[in-house]
């Protein structure tokens, strides 16, 4: 199966000369449809740099990011937001929802931002909230929602524009165990049932049971890239 995105020998170095810090070194990674990938590693290991580059939020110093057959690392700044909008949805630990907007308004806003000419963004936002099991809370403000419910709204928002890849930065870190497992079940379902790729950075080993692959990053290098059944996979 063709990967949705590929990182080829991607490196990222911050600073120059004596002060240069290699945050990521020669990383190879393939993201496939329907796959849940966990990225684990200690703090400062390069996980965030890895998903920032994968999500086209950060330019690599070297290497290629192949998306849709072209190298996104070579695209100009003007082309990146469009490519990002069409391929990626993001979920964050802190939810990052507008507190003044209801759940459905937060999702509809993302739909409008991705496509200003989108038809019936509110209706589509309701459909997405329904997909994450939150239609009953559509008109609630974030302050009236629990942590798990906020993260579900954030996931619905990430689905705006129907991106094939969801990238999560510790999306369960702020949640209790039961809620965190619920959110991961939801993400797992989005991969299995809708063929999306889900890439999640986490410190929580309990989430491994939802993953197809676990990538371990240490000192800026991908130390292991294992299938759920601990079968080594070629990147």
């Amino acid at each position: 199966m063709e990967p949705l995105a590929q990182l080829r020998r991607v490196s990222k170095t911050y600073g120059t000369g004596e002060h240069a810090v290699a945050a990521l070194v020669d990383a190879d990674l393939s993201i496939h449809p329907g796959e849940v990938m966990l990225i684990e590693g200690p703090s400062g290991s390069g996980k965030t740099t890895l998903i920032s580059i994968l999500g086209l939020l950060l330019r690599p110093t070297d290497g290629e990011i192949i998306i849709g057959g072209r190298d996104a690392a070579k695209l100009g700044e003007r082309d990146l937001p469009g490519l990002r909008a069409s391929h990626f949805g993001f979920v964050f630990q802190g939810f990052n929802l507008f507190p003044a907007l209801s759940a459905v308004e937060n999702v509809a806003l993302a739909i409008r931002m991705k496509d200003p000419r989108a038809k019936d963004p509110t209706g589509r936002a309701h459909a997405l909230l329904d997909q994450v099991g939150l239609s009953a809370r559509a008109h609630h403000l974030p302050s009236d929602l629990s942590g798990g419910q906020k993260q579900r709204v954030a996931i619905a928002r990430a689905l705006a524009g129907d991106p094939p890849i969801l990238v999560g930065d510790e999306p369960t870190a702020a949640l209790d165990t039961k809620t965190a497992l619920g959110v991961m079940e939801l993400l797992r379902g989005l991969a299995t049932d809708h063929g999306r790729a889900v890439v999640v950075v986490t410190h929580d080993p309990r989430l491994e049971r939802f993953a197809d692959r676990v990538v371990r990053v240490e000192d800026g290098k991908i130390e292991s890239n294992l299938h759920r059944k601990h079968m080594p996979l070629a990147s």
Partner: protein
Amino acid sequence: MWNLAKKILLHDRVKFAVASAGVSISVMLVLVQIGLYAGFMQTASTLIDHGHADLWVTRQASENFDFTAPLDDRTYYRVASTPGVARAERMILAFAQLKLDSGGDLGVQVVGVEPDAQLMGPWHVVAGDGRRVGEPGAITVDRSEYAKLHIDRVGHRTEINGARAEVVAMTDGIRSFTTSPLVFTDLTSARTFTGYPAEAENYVLVRVAAGADPIAVRDALRAIPHVDAYTTSEMSARTRTYWSSRTGVGAGFFTTAILGIIVGLVVCGQILYNGTLQHLREYGTLKAMGAKNGQVVRVILYQALIAAVVGLVFGGALAFLMRAAMKGANLIVALSPGLFVATAIVTVVMCALASMLSIIKVLRLDPATVFKV
């Protein structure tokens, strides 16, 4: 985007109230200060603007309408006989002391006009008979000056420079820029009241003959020795310019108006900037998800526009209240539609400028920062 901008602003009602108050006070200050200035300028040239003359003839190099050197009657006759002049009238404008009932004196500005004057005279007569101004010692006084002059009715008798004077008519809305009440009377009484020589005046008002070119007539009058001539609009503008630029009146009002704009700029800017900082992660998320800079900038500009509109509405209402309050103090706040349009433009520009820091912050916002908790 409108919806998002509106909800972000209204979500924190206290901050929104502070921002609106800041812009409202700014708008009110601008409107009241410029309105007061416009009112003063209207008052400064009120005699000229309410007269019916086409041209004004005065002593050469006279700079101030209210303080001019006298002309003699020979000049008047030369003006009257200049080709293109259909009618010429003499006018005296000079200061005198009016005796108060309390025994004290108060300075008044006497306007002496021809007994059959057509080009200058009291207007808005609301009581008495303005045509009696030609009678010896007859004067008209404005209603707004009654208290100051201790006058309680038409028919009130007093003295000006020791000569008998009787109020024969009351006007409404004739105010003097010099704060000395304007008192209309005829030329003879004016000479008595002010001590002007029998054959002297300080203005000759001209009506140009039908078909004659006022500019050509003005130029012909300028050929008379020691005389300057101006069209009515030139005379009005000269008078306003003198009081505005030579006395610092204009600078004073405009400085306060500019301070008002600065107050609005700072308050509005701070509130918008705080709001932007508060929602920086959310804006970053939108950018991460593919929102273009223009879309996010529009949200901030819409917030600025909403603050401007709310400020204009409340500031405008405050300005009307201030105008009503100042009317009691005999101050004119001239709130014209043009002033409102100009203030609206200034306010929108002010709020847009106030949002610049926020816009720069958002433009520089790296969407990758949303991954850093």
